[in-house]
C-alpha cells in the first residue's frame, strides 16, 4: 500500500477538523449540562443543528447589502484556510511554508473583521453593539497573542508551526519550562476571549445586552447561520489543537505511516477531550465578567505572556 502523501494528509486533516468540530462543541455542552446536574443534549446535537440550519430558508434584512451575504463565506473560508495551516495530525505539513503562526492569527482576524462588518450591515442596534464589543476584545487580545507567539518563537527560533512542534519534540524539557507553561496560560485566556467563552462572553445567553458574538449574528439565519456557527466551532477546535499540539506535541505524526497517523488521531482526540473537560469545569466555576472588567482579564493574560518572555529570555 502506498503511503499517503503530505497533501492528502493535509486535506484529510482539514476535513477531519471540520467533521470533529461540532462534536467537540457538543461534548463541551454535554459536560456542562452534566455539571449543572442536567441530562443535557447528546454529544451529536450540533450535527443535527447544522443539518436543520442548512435545510432552512434564509431571511435577509432589506437594509443589508452584498457584504452581509458574502461575510459568512469569508468567515468560513478563512477558518478552513487556518485548518490547512496548523498541525492537527501530522508535521511537517506541505502547507507549512504557506503560513506561520502570525498568518493563522491574522486569518482568524480576517473572519472577525468581516463578521463585525456584517453585524453593522443591517443597521440594527444589536449588531453594532456586538461588532463594537467583538472588535474591542479582539484588539485587546492581540498583544497577548503576539507575545505568546514571541515566547514560542524564542524557543524554536521561528514562528513556523512545524519548527515549533519539532523543537518541542526534540527537547521535551522545554514543555515543562515555565516560559512554555506561562505562554500556555496566556493563550488559554486568549482562547476564551477569541471564542466568546465564559467569562468573556456567554455562548448560551439570551439577553441581547450581554452579548458579544451572538449579537453580531442575530440577523443571520438558515445556511448562512450554519456556516458561521460551523466556523465558530471549527475555531474552537483549532485553538484546542494549537494548545494541544504546540505545547504538548507528543503523538503528532512525523512520518506518514498509517500507524503513526492512527496514533496521532488517538492522541488528538485525547487532548481535545482533556481540554473540553478543563473548559467545561472552568466555565461552570466562573461567572461572566462585566464588559469593562474584560480588559482586566486580558491584562492578566498579557502579564502572563510578558512573564513567559521574560523567563524564556533567561532560560535561554
Amino acid at each position: 500500500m502506498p503511503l499517503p502523501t503530505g497533501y492528502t494528509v493535509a486535506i484529510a486533516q482539514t476535513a477531519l477538523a471540520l467533521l470533529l468540530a461540532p462534536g467537540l462543541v457538543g461534548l463541551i455542552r454535554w459536560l456542562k449540562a452534566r455539571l449543572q446536574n442536567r441530562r443535557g443534549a447528546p454529544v451529536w446535537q450540533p450535527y443535527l443543528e447544522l443539518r436543520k440550519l442548512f435545510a432552512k430558508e434564509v431571511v435577509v434584512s432589506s437594509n443589508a447589502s452584498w457584504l452581509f451575504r458574502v461575510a459568512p463565506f469569508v468567515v468560513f473560508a478563512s477558518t478552513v484556510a487556518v485548518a490547512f495551516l496548523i498541525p492537527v495530525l501530522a508535521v511537517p505539513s506541505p502547507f507549512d511554508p504557506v503560513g506561520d503562526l502570525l498568518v493563522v492569527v491574522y486569518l482568524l482576524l480576517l473572519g472577525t473583521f468581516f463578521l463585525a462588518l456584517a453585524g453593522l450591515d443591517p443597521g440594527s442596534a444589536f449588531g453594532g453593539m456586538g461588532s463594537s464589543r467583538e472588535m474591542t476584545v479582539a484588539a485587546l487580545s492581540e498583544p497577548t497573542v503576539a507575545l505568546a507567539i514571541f515566547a514560542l518563537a524564542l524557543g524554536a527560533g521561528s514562528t513556523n508551526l512545524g519548527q515549533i512542534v519539532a523543537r518541542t519534540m526534540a527537547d521535551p524539557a522545554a514543555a515543562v519550562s515555565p516560559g512554555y507553561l506561562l505562554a500556555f496560560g496566556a493563550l488559554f485566556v486568549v482562547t476564551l476571549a477569541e471564542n466568546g467563552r465564559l467569562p468573556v462572553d456567554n455562548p448560551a445567553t439570551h439577553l441581547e445586552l450581554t452579548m458579544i458574538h451572538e449579537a453580531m449574528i442575530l440577523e443571520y439565519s438558515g445556511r448562512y447561520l450554519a456556516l458561521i456557527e460551523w466556523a465558530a466551532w471549527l475555531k474552537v477546535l483549532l485553538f484546542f489543537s494549537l494548545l494541544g499540539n504546540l505545547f504538548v506535541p507528543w503523538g503528532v505524526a512525523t512520518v506518514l505511516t498509517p500507524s503513526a497517523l492512527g496514533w496521532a488521531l488517538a492522541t488528538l482526540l485525547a487532548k481535545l477531550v482533556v481540554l473540553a473537560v478543563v473548559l467545561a469545569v472552568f466555565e461552570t466555576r466562573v461567572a461572566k465578567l462585566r464588559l469593562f472588567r474584560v480588559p482586566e482579564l486580558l491584562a492578566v493574560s498579557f502579564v502572563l505572556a510578558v512573564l513567559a518572555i521574560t523567563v524564556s529570555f533567561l532560560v535561554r
Partner: protein
Amino acid sequence: MIFLLMVAGYLFGALAALLFARGWVARWLTAAGAIIGGACAVTLAVAEVFGFDIGSFQIIVVLARRPWWLQGGVIQDPAQPLSAVFLGVVGAIAIPAALYSIGYTRAWEGRRSLRMPGAMLNLFLLSMSLVPLAENILWFVLFWEGMAVTSYLLVMTEAEEPETVHAGNWYLGMTQFGLGFILAAFFLLLPPDGSGDFTALAKHAATLSPGLKSLVFVLALIGFGSKAGLVPLHVWLPSAHPAAPSHVSALMSGVMIKLGVYGVLLFGLRLLGGGPAWWGGLVLTLGAVSALLGVLYALMEHDLKRLLAYHSIENIGIIFIGVGAGMMFLSYDLPALAVLGFVGGLYHTINHACFKGLLFLGAGSVLHATHTRNMEEMGGLIKRMPRTALFFLVGAAAISALPPLNGFVSEWVVFQALLGGASIPQREVAVLMPIAVAMLALASGLAAACFVKAFGITFLGIARSHEAEQAREAPVSMQVAMAALALACVVLGAAAYAMVPALGRVVAGLAGLPPASAVTVSWSLRVPLSAPGAVGQISPLPILLGLALLLVAIPIGLWLSRASRALRVSDTWGCGRIAQTPRMQYTAAAFAEPLRRIFAALYRPTEDVSIDFHPESRYFVQSIAYRAHIIPWFERYLYDPVIDRVIAWAARVRAIQSGSLHAYLTYLVAALVIMLGLLMLWGS
C-alpha cells in the same frame, strides 16, 4: 531621457493649468502632465530597483550625459537605489491621484479656478520627485522647501473655511520648525571646503566625534520626524491632511510624509553611516509610541479624513519601528536582521502609500457624493456607491493588516525582524523588542477595530442624512484611480517574494550592510531568522489563491448539496418594533465607546449630558444631548504652553514697534554697530 521627460511632464501639467484655468481641457491636460511624470518616475524606479537589463542600461547611458544645467554634481540619476524607491512611490501615487483629480475637480467648475491647484499639484509632484534625487544640500533644501510651499498652497485651496486657515497655519509653522532642524543638521555636517555634495558630507561625517554625530542625528530626526508626523511632532498632520482636496490628501499622506522617512534613512545610513544602538532605540521607541497613539486617536475621530490622517501617524510609526529595529541590529553587527528591519520599513512605506492613497481617494469620493466628512451623517453608501465601497473595503482590509493583502505582509516582515531581537547581546536593550511587538500588535488590532468602524458606519446600514440618501457613484476617472490602487494592494501582497529581495538589494551597501541579498526567494517569502537554520516563511500568493478557491468552492458546494436555496427579504429584526429609523443604528461614537472607556486615562474624556424634560413631568424626556470630548494631550500639555509663552513674549517685543520712523532708523544703526563690533571681535 526618461528623467527629462518626467520633469517635462510635470512642467507641462503646471503650464496647462496656468494657461487654461478651467474647463475639461485644463483638467485633462493638468492630469496628463502629472500622469506622464508619474509614469516616468515609476519606470526609472522599477528599472533601478529590479535591475531590468534593457531599461536600466538605456537609462544609465542616457543619464550619463546630463544636460548642461544639471552638471556639477547637483542632481544624480537615481543610481542610489534608496532614492529610486522613494521616487517610485511618488510616481506610483501621482498617477492615480492625477487621474482622480479629473473627476474630482469637475465639481469645482464655476466655483473655483483650476489655475492655482492644478499648477501647484504638478509642481508639488515635481519637487517631491526631485527631493530623493538631490545629491547636494542646496538642491535638497530647495526641493524640500518647494514641496513644503506647494503643499501649503494646496492645503489652502479651500481657504474660505476658517478651519483650513487654522490647519494651514499649523502646517506652515511645523514645516518651518522642521526645516530649521534639518538645516542645522546639514550645516553641522558641512565639510571645511564648503562642498554640499552628499558624498563629501558622508566623507566628512566619518571624521566627526561621536557626540557631534549624535547631535546631527537627533537634529535630523526632529526635522524629518516633524515632516513624517512622528509623535509628538504630529500635531499639524491631522488638521492639514483633511483640509486639502482629497487627491492632495492622498499624496500628502501617502507620499510626502514618507520623504521624512527618506530623510532619516539618508542621515542615519548614508551620511552618518550608522551609529550607536540608542539611535535605533530612539527611532524604535518613537515609532512604537506613534503607532499606538496614532491609532488610539484615530479611533475617537468621526471625521473620515481626520481618521485616515491619524492612521498615517500609526503607519509612519510602524515604518519607524522597522527602521529603528534595523538601525539597532546594525549597531550590534547583526546584518541579516538589520536588512530585515529596513526592508520591513521600506516595504511598509510602499504599501502604506498604496492603501492610504486608496483610502483617501475613497474618502474623497464619499465627500464628493455627500458633501460631508462627518461619518455620523453617512451610512448605507455601499448600495449607492458599490464600487467605491468595494475599493475602500480593500484598502481597509489592507491597512488592518489582514492577509493576504500587502499591509499584512510588510507588518509580518517587521514582526519577524523584531522577533530576531532576542539575538541582541545586551539584554536590557533586547527587552525593547517584545515591548515593541506588543505595541505593534495592539496597534494593528485597534486598526482593525477602527476600520470596521470607518467602513461600517460610512458604507453599511441605513443612510443617516439626506445627503447620504442622495449620494451617487463617483465619476469613472475616480473609480479607475481607486481600482488601480486596490489592485496594487493585492499585487504588492502577492508579489512579496519578489518585493522583499528587491528591497534587500536596495538597502545593501548602505552603512556597510552586506551586498549579497540575505533574503532567499521561491514562490514563498522566506526570511532567515536569528536561530541557526531557522527561517520564517509565508507565501502570500498561495494564501490569496487558496482563499479565492475556498470562496468559490464553498458556495458551489453549497449549491450542489441538498442545502436549501430559499431566500426571503424582510425587515431588520428589531424586537418587533414598528419601524426602523437610521437613528436606531449604532453610531461611530457608540462603536468606539468601549475603547474610549478602557483607555480613559489617556483620553481624559469630558462628557456633557443635557436632558430636556417635559414641562409637565420629569418622567418624560423630550430630548437628550450628549457631547463627549477628548483632550488631545500633546496640544494641551506640550504645544499650548509653548505657544502661550511665544505670544506673551511677542506682546512684550511689540513695545519696540513704536511706528516712528526715527525709532526704526535708530534700530538699524544700532544693529549695524553691533554687527560690526561682533565682526571685529571675531577677527581678533
